[in-house]
């Protein structure tokens, strides 16, 4: 009986601690004016977004920033949008390079603060079609600055047959790449199946891969179940896919341009393309935590990372289209912006930027759509 009472006491303490943590901020206002730097800034980023010359001495847009502002950049790389959300909830970080499937959740959760754009002079040069979008602002209030965009590319081994141009090779059981296919291991990948269905089963009436009603969603899961038998690898760590591409144990996969670049740098015989059916993609946003301990440095970082020089550096290294229009003149490869279609609106027409699916259909239909938590559950079950 005594031990029971002890257990109860411990439980009560636990509940108290948890409820204290779970209270949540209601998103305090944006920074009013820029003060002196705090000496450091803790950022969560995608691999390849924070390069200080340690990966490649020629690739460095951090050292100069640190010397100029006195803000030491502490980078934490996240492997998925979900991980970014989880890390931001800890309140230990000042800024994050969030993709569209994380931003809405961060805004709704009060984990990020609105951004005072007056304090970020470089924002003026950002492409107009990236500003004030569903995934980076709310009711006309900006919650971050656009970083860059890209498509999730189809990577293939150039010796494994004719170059594929269709997403079908990823999904159909008779794919010539069966057994050597590499799939991105995240719930948001369900949208790739939806893109495939948009092309192959128009009867389903999918108009936006992030806006799926139950029937459409079930069809996407069925496509993924079929795909399972031909998948050789589900990758969550980008280095895993890179290693497999280099070893040749993967010959087709959904990839990021940076992985392709890194593997090609190690003599992998691969190329990448955007499937003709279209692709999922990302438009990332730098956001500031509502609990930032180094807000001034965070603002300086935001302004720096979208400055023409740094933005050109990131865009070229990561393999994405820059967000700053002036970046295009500064890339080492003069054709970078052309290659990545930075200014070509028609290219982006069939790129579906990662967005958080919600119960209210994103395409405006008057039915109930499957919300993201269900995507997560379905993906977990698929992978279990």
């Amino acid at each position, binding site marked *: 009986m005594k031990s029971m009472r002890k257990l109860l006491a411990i439980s009560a303490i*636990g509940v108290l601690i948890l409820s204290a943590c779970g209270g949540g901020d209601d998103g305090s206002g944006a920074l009013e004016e820029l003060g002196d730097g705090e000496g450091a800034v803790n950022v969560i980023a995608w691999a390849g977004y924070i390069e200080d010359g340690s990966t490649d001495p020629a690739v460095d847009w951090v050292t100069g920033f640190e010397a100029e502002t006195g803000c030491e950049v502490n980078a934490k790389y996240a492997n998925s949008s979900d991980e970014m959300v989880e890390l931001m909830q800890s309140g230990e970080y000042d800024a994050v390079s969030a993709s569209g499937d994380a931003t809405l959740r961060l805004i709704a959760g009060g984990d990020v603060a609105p951004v005072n754009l007056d304090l970020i002079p470089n924002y003026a040069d950002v492409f107009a079609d990236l500003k004030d979008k569903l995934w980076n602002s709310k009711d006309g209030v900006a919650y971050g600055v656009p970083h860059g965009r890209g498509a999730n590319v189809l990577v293939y081994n150039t010796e494994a047959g004719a170059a594929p141009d269709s997403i079908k090779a990823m999904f159909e059981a008779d794919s010539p790449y069966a057994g050597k296919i590499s799939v991105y291991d995240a719930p948001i990948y369900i949208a790739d199946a939806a893109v495939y269905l948009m092309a192959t089963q128009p009867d389903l009436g999918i108009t936006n891969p992030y806006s799926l009603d139950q029937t459409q969603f079930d069809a996407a899961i069925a496509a993924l179940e079929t795909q399972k038998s031909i998948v050789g690898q589900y990758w969550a760590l980008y280095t895993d896919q890179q290693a497999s591409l280099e070893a040749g144990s993967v010959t087709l996969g959904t990839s990021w341009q940076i992985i392709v670049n890194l593997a090609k740098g190690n003599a992998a015989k691969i190329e990448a393309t955007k499937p003709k059916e279209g692709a999922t993609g990302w438009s990332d946003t730098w956001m500031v935590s509502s609990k930032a301990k180094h807000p001034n440095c965070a603002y300086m970082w935001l302004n720096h990372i979208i400055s023409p020089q740094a933005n050109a550096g990131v865009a070229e290294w990561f393999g994405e289209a820059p967000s700053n229009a002036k970046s295009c003149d500064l890339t080492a490869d003069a054709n970078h912006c052309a290659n990545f279609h930075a200014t070509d609106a028609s290219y982006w027409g069939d790129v579906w930027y990662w967005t958080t699916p919600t119960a209210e259909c994103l395409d405006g239909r008057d039915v109930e759509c499957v919300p993201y938590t269900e995507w997560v559950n379905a993906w977990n*079950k698929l992978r279990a």
Partner: protein
Amino acid sequence: MSSVANTLRRSTRFASKHPRVGLGILLSGPLLWLLVVYVGSLALLIISAFFKLQEFTGKATTELTLSNLDEVATESAYLMMVLRSIGIATAATAICFALALPVGFYISKLAKSWAKRGLVVAMLLPLWAGYLVKAFALRAVFEPGSEFGNGGFLKNTIGWSPGFGYLAVIITLAYMWFPYMFLPIYTGFERLPESLLDASSDLGAGSIRTFFSVMMPMLVPSIAAGSIFTFSLSLGDYITVKIVGGTVQMVGNIIERALLAPNQPLAAAFTLWPIGIMVVYLGVMARLGAFKNL
């Protein structure tokens, strides 16, 4: 300097005069640690399995629900995965046992005394390397490659590799945790009195009979103790699976997925599986005497 020594001396004297107070001071630190870090975190974990998730933001609320437990206990995909995890952990444990028994016997009973220490150190050597180093080393060993690229060590030397999957996971886990099985078994052999073996042979038992009828029964507690380590470490592992598992998933991976979703309550509910399995396992092992001579 001397004042520190004086204070120390005075406090030792005080403690020796009041043994209970001394003991209390000595144990209060570890006890607090045990309560807060061990019991406290476990209690928090179990409680949070009952919390409801705020769907969109992925934050736990303090509203209570049974739906997490229900999902974890009834969903067939998850149950299959739990069973597979048990299978993998059992297989890794069996391999560790099959290797540790003859090796432990040899080193303890047959090896020359000068060679003993070196051999024991050699068996424990894997403990000196980092976990990730070992896992990635084995990744390089198992890499299947293809006609489009070079495979790893196995492929290049014997022309065959199991590739990434169950077999690679089981072998890697067995390699990782082998020392934890070896050590208790070796100590078990060391503790066997020579006189018993002499008596056995005096009574006419051959070496095989002696091994199975005299040594093995006395070794059961050591084997049980070793298996607790290898089984629990394998059951809870999720990093090895990621590195050499290909498409294989274990219960730890699902916990990580749920945690990162972020769905902390569901992750907590999943952890009840390994906790429950280990409670049962420890119960069985305790029966076999695993804790009698730890």
